[in-house]
């Protein structure tokens, strides 16, 4: 067999390794990173969704699932709402509905509004800093 043959085989093997193994590893890294990112963002997004209005739980899910990449499991929103309620950032009230049984609506408390303001400010700082890093010419 010629040296070229072995060289070609070596390149083919490296490509296979990259495609099948490293690609999987890259995907797993991306998935983990995205999961961590979503964890922090969801609470901020839920509070921003309710800001200035009162929303039914299902409506909150509908608004957030339109944001690409934010919501993987729609059910994750409900434990977040429950947690925010226990922290007294949101409160609930029941309102009769023409479309069916009475609905539970969520709205921000004063404490929730103050916390949201702090969180939005923090997010703006991080976003500005991150955007600057991306734009920097190197």
């Amino acid at each position: 067999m010629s040296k070229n043959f072995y060289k070609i085989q070596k390149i083919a093997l490296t490509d296979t390794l990259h495609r099948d193994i490293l690609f999987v590893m890259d995907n797993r890294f991306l998935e983990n990173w995205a999961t961590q990112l979503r964890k922090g963002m969801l609470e901020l997004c839920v509070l921003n969704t309710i800001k200035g209005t009162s929303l039914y739980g299902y409506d909150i899910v509908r608004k957030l699932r339109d944001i690409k990449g934010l919501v993987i499991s729609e059910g994750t929103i409900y434990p977040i709402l429950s947690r925010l309620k226990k922290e007294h950032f949101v409160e609930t009230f029941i309102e009769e509905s023409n479309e069916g049984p009475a609905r539970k609506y969520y709205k921000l408390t004063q404490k929730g509004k103050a916390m949201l303001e702090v969180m939005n400010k923090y997010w703006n700082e991080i976003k500005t800093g991150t955007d600057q890093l991306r734009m920097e010419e190197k």
Partner: protein
Amino acid sequence: MLEFDDRAKIRLDKYLNKVKVYLRDCKDVSVDDILQNIIDHIANETVNSPRPISEDELEKVLKKLGSPDKWVPQEELSLWKKLVMRLQAGPEDWRLSYLSFALFFIAILCLVLCGRHKPIIYENNVQRPDINLYQQMNKVSEPHKFITVNNQKPHNLILEKRYGSSLFVIFLLASFIVSRAVIAVAIEHQELLGKKWLIYPSLLTVYVLIFGLLMFWPAIILGSLANQFIHSKIWFDITNTATNSQEYLLWILIIMSLGLWWAIFWGTISKSLMIKNTFRPFFDTTNQTLNKVLAFAGIGIVMLSIIALILTFYV
């Protein structure tokens, strides 16, 4: 009003139970709130679906809702659930039950095979099959470490017997822990189904031991204390009799303490959460009538013991 067909109803019940199981350990969420939200979510998603809602329609909604085990951050899960999630890699959740049974089987094998051999005793490097283990025990200064015969270290087989018992305990405990992990995620008794025959051997072995200690600990402790008291000078000064004739008093006291403890246990403690959690799943549902009968039996034993005591002093 939500209407489901039979299969959809079963599927929904399973899903909601799974939500309860996984959110049970989260202190900062209200499980009831979340369950209500899920029902409302399903109602809204299927508003245009024909009634009763079929399993396929429900499955579409549940798929988008996602599995409840993904809703809880890993750090909030209990130790049992973390262990289960690590071991459960796929849809087949019988794996743990098989593991439990395998560990139990190995435990029994260790006891049977490694405990079978009689220790071989060597004296001056010559085998002495005529000398048995117990004869030599008197010459041992540290019986739990090793046995010497004429200051010679014995053959390794003597250590094997001890390893057999130790390995039995280790594997039994491992099997027990895995069985408890299976129960931790079993949603209802019906979920255990065939799995229970794989996990019950290790559970029952450990539970019988714990239950025995729980039922008879007054006899052990009080009996020991009473025995010391009855053989003390104080007792002799009070009764001015030989201790041998007072042995039956010791037995009456032991039986009375057992009766009292059984009355307390079956009357109150057996229904407590601690007992239910310790002996899951056997104490999950309690038979009130049986508990009352056993409690009254305990009271009856106490009464009979008091009568026996009174008769002892006056006859």
